[in-house]
């Protein structure tokens, strides 16, 4: 290894260390509040990818910084650089590392994350909530309890919930940012998504606890939102009993 490349490696290590420290320090501020178990899987994947991205970023930036500082010429260069078209070990190393990194990313957090989500989805369902989007409102039905709500989505904490999402007119998307869960509402189709709220909370204290349409659907797309309220099981049952029953 040439001396120059050695300096780059030192620079890379320094940058990587700084970057990883920054990721660890900043992740709590970067990732929003989380209110569902499934969100943990997403956040873990996010963090892993950040950790993996840092060394890649750091290497390219280290090479760029070093090259620009070391090899730049003031004014027009009077000579050509060495006629180096290829460098076997460097290319081989690059291809090996980039392929290996890609495979790592595919396996973890890609496939492992998918499997975790699927395993989570496969658990016994405590509550089914049907969510139907129409321009520009959501109709929320609790078929087991024969309750319909149009103004808010109320959920019990720790209950495993299946959302059955559909649409009457155009594409919409069901998204609760603090749950990290999203699925499109497609006319003529029922899509499902699962979530297990992990703590109580409501839209009034945190805007990320909202059911937001996330697929452009026309004029009031951004207003196609209902507040979400996650209650204790008891309170949820009380809420249900206060609602008008429909058949």
């Amino acid at each position, binding site marked *: 290894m040439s001396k120059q490349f050695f300096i780059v490696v030192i620079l890379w290590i320094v940058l990587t260390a700084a970057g990883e420290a920054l990721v660890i320090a900043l992740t709590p501020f970067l990732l929003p509040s989380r209110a569902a178990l499934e969100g943990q*899987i*997403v956040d873990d*994947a*996010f963090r892993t990818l950040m950790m993996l*991205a840092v060394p890649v*970023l750091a290497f390219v930036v280290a090479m*760029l910084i070093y*090259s*620009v500082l070391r*090899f*730049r*010429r003031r004014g*027009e*260069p009077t000579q*050509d*650089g*060495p*006629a*180096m*078209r*290829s460098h076997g070990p*460097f*290319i081989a190393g*690059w291809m090996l590392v*980039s*392929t290996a990194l*890609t495979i790592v*990313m*595919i396996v973890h*957090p*890609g496939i492992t*994350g998918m499997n*975790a*989500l*699927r395993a989570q989805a496969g658990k016994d369902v405590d509550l089914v909530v049907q969510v139907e989007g129409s321009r520009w409102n959501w109709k929320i039905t609790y078929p087991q309890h024969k309750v319909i709500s149009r103004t808010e989505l109320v959920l019990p904490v720790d209950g495993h919930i299946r959302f059955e*999402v559909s649409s009457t*007119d*155009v*594409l919409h*998307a069901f*998204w609760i*940012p603090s749950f*990290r869960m*999203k699925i*499109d509402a*497609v*006319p*003529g*189709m029922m899509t499902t998504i699962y979530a297990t709220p992990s703590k109580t909370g409501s839209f009034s204290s945190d*805007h*990320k606890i*909202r059911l*937001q*349409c*996330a697929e*452009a659907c*026309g004029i*009031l*797309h*951004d207003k196609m939102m209902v507040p979400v309220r996650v209650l204790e099981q008891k309170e949820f049952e009380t809420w249900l009993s206060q609602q008008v029953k429909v058949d």
Partner: protein
Amino acid sequence: MAALTGIIKGLIFALIGFIFGGGIGFLLINAAGRSGTNEPVIALGYLFALIGWLFGAGLWDAWGREWVGLPARKLEVNGWKRYFRFCTNHKVIGVQYLVTFVFLFLFAGLLAMLMRTELIAPGQTIMGPNTYNTTMSLHGIIMIAVAVATIMGAFANFFLPILIGAEDVAFPRVNALSFWLLPPVVILLLLTPLFGGFDTGWTAYPPLSVINATGSLFFLMAFITFGISSILGGLNFITTVITQRASGMTWGRLPIFAWGIFTASMISLTATSFVAVGLIQVVLDRVAGTSFFNASQGGNPLLYEHIFWFYSHPAVYIMILPGFGIILEVITHFSRKPLFAYKWVVGSFFFIVFLGFIVWAHHLNTSGMSDYLYIPFMVTTELISIPTGVVFLSALGTMWLGRLWLRPPMLFALGYLFNFLIGGVTGIFNADVPTDIHLHDTYFIVAHFHYTMMGGVIFALMAGIYYWFPKLTGRMYNETLAKVHFWWMFIMFNVTFIPMFWLGINGMNRRVFDYPEALGGVNMFVSIAAFLLGASFLVFLTNMVYSWLRGPVAEANPWRARTLEWQISSPPPEENFPEPPQVVGDPYGYGIPGSVHAVLNPAGSALNTGGG
């Protein structure tokens, strides 16, 4: 007036065509007993108006007359007037493309400024939601067109034939045709606000795009027309590279920019006709009452998403591959070293084309498609980081131990590397299904693709403009202004888009007119940064206009680069090369004593080219 006769004739023919086609549409509506819709009139009227426009603008004189046994008329006029005519010279068409699209770029940039003004604070600021949606959609589609067609249309047209030692492209008349298809596109897009606008964004997902205002039909027809232009361009460049190379210009000596155009053309030739079908299906659903996307009649909106992204993901590489070509070209000449790992780069371009066709469904990660599709598409998508990495390998390897000359093109190329790196790394978060479930359709995506499109393609475009400006115009730009432009644009670009990643993760979905109050502060910051970013283009525009008119006369080869375009005068002579050049060596033979790329005057004295 003589300059405009073609355009005026085209407009008159278009009007006649519209009346004819619209009349047929009107009769069809009556025959089918469908009242209450005028869209068949518009659609058929436009079809014939388009044909009328093309024939009037020059297709008939330059080409159509031959079909009925008459000799074609020469439409060439000299001087500046030729830029307004149906001119088949590839250099004229290149300039036509460049000027048209730089103006479109600035126009769509102004639309972005309007959007950021609206988003500067929660609630309504300057416009209503429908106006906002139309502004947003227009910004989107015009910028997509800019990204697809500026490098391909302008630089590939002007420089590809010269780079390979040809006199012109393979089909000059098709080339002119593909440019003259663009004015109707622009007119249609500018007309959309008068017909209710369109609120679907540039993706035009049905059923929304089937049931919304007539503006959407205008948008769809504009997109299809643009697609035809793009197909013809791709066809032309592939044929040009295969058949028009100068003798001695073997595949292994092809400049990397030519490879970028060649591979990108493979995509625009094929994938574009695929998406045209998807768009036509939406038009048919609107105009003819078919049920492609009407779920109650057996249609399925997911079909459109599949067809659309089968084009639109590869389309990203139509934009990126020429950009790769430009920056690698610039980096090798400004590092004064041979292009590092040339064969690996060419291979990775082809690999990108191949992979580009089998990754589309990662745009459907939250669409509700079949569960078994997620992992295969995640795998193919993430594999793309390998060939993309090769481009970085080549760029870094070329700079290593080089003699770096930090002129404006080189600065933009370096800026490109940094921005595209961020764009690429954040792309992984979108390819990965677990994270994408959260990030899909949020400002994270907006930030990501602006890093690849603006930070990538537009920086490459700027690198290209500053690199080739002396050759295009024969004049030199102001170096200081160019450097001011770079640093201003580079810094404000990053300041604008980095916070958008945070916005997306924290619950701001895209294509919204309004957002939760809590996100107000960051949005105001982004808006102000965006205004400053927009202002950097005033520097650019000043520099371009002033330098084109008054700049110092440029020498033939201000960069002492080795490729063919720098071996002829600035601007190039009408026929490019007085004698067909004889290519005898590598275009990137820097640092090799006595290395020669091409002999320009094989018969006469040995007027060798080459750096040293």
